[in-house]
């Protein structure tokens, strides 16, 4: 059985759907940092069967919107002095800015450099669809 030390002060990203841990690890640029981090893949989970976990021995700003888009099942645990002082559930974000493009080639957000595409969640049942604030086209987001 693999054993990884618990962290003293930092963040644990838990309940990651198996396979998505590496994507989150990369999105948070954790391969570039100089403090301890660990990515655990396919760990046994009573809730999910299997899960990925990321442990970060530092308090960093995590983009909850981005995490919600990648995997809305995630739990974030904030650890201080070996204890979890706060638990947060990630949710599918209602508003997303600048994380993906509008699928409509005629949308102004695809042709003006200084425009960050802005979307509002319109459907999260089955497929996740976002409505562009500029052209109103619906863009399906695949997790």
């Amino acid at each position: 059985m693999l054993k990884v030390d618990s962290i003293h002060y930092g963040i644990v990203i838990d309940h990651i759907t198996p396979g998505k841990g590496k994507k989150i690890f990369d999105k948070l640029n954790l391969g570039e940092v100089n403090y301890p981090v660990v990515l655990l893949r396919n760990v046994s989970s009573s809730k999910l069967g299997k899960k990925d976990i990321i442990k970060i021995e530092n308090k960093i700003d995590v983009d909850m919107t981005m995490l919600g888009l990648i995997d809305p099942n995630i739990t974030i645990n904030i650890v201080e002095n070996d204890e979890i002082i706060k638990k947060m559930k990630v949710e599918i974000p209602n508003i997303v800015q600048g994380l993906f493009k509008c699928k409509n080639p005629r949308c102004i957000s695809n042709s003006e450099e200084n425009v960050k595409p802005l979307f509002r969640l319109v459907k999260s049942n089955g497929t996740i669809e976002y409505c562009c604030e500029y052209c109103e086209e619906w863009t399906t987001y695949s997790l």
Partner: protein
Amino acid sequence: MSLKGKHLIDPNDFTLEELDEIFDLSEKIIKDKEAYNSICNGKILGALFYEPSTRTRLSFESAMLRMGGRVLGFSDATHSSVAKGESVADTIRVLSSYADIVVMRHPKEGAPRLASQYANVPIINGGDGGHQHPTQTLADLLTIRVLKGSIEGNKIAFCGDLKFGRTVHSLIKTLSRYSGNKFILVSPNELRLPKYLKNMLIKNGNIDIYETEDLESVIEEIDILYMTRIQKERFFNEADYVRLKDSYILTRNKLNNAKSDMIVMHPLPRVNEISYDLDEDERAVYFTQARFGIYTRMALMSLLLGVI
């Protein structure tokens, strides 16, 4: 309730009460045009037309001139700083200090919304790509209110290019906010109403929509027939346009089974989707509709400028 300083980017930017205020004023202007011929003295309309327009641009210019104001702007983006690569945001920041109110037509969808985020004067969407055309909707709604007596409780058929026809998008979105309206969507399969818009209509309420490709099968039940041109400029492929351009040609004979008080509307310009013989039929109201466009634009601009 005041419309002063507001933008009109999407017809849903205004409440139904605010729309009524515009229509009430439009009808007052129709009755006594002279009374409004100097209310915009000293005001300047900036007319930014990034793509060709005859009717909308001249209608806005005429509306401002009839109220004693002046107009500046461009009608061809190739001869403006836009051709040098200037962004919409920068253009509008500068124009905001040159004009008191701005109308913008742009081929990119959402461009007027973007402009409104950087402007400190009211921005009016004069048509953005295949997306929305809210001031045409004002003219359309006034036409329906005056000629049908009410904007509620009508059965409206939209026929032609429902995919790229921005006038359809704005009008159906607004009509769905009035109670009792039913919609028949008549188009070739490839030119159906965009999915996002249909989803929005269904999501927002109990909307009655029927889709068909056959206009004649529904003609006798319609109160308002809204014809549209196949939008050649929005096609990426010329062959598709050629194949679809003659999908619907309305002739006087085809109205034989239609109601005697049905009205035929069209945002104009027409190509061949309404034959000239229909112009003599009293149910053809598209030239009245175009005329009403001047008065709704006068009412809109005077209210946004707060001069009334």
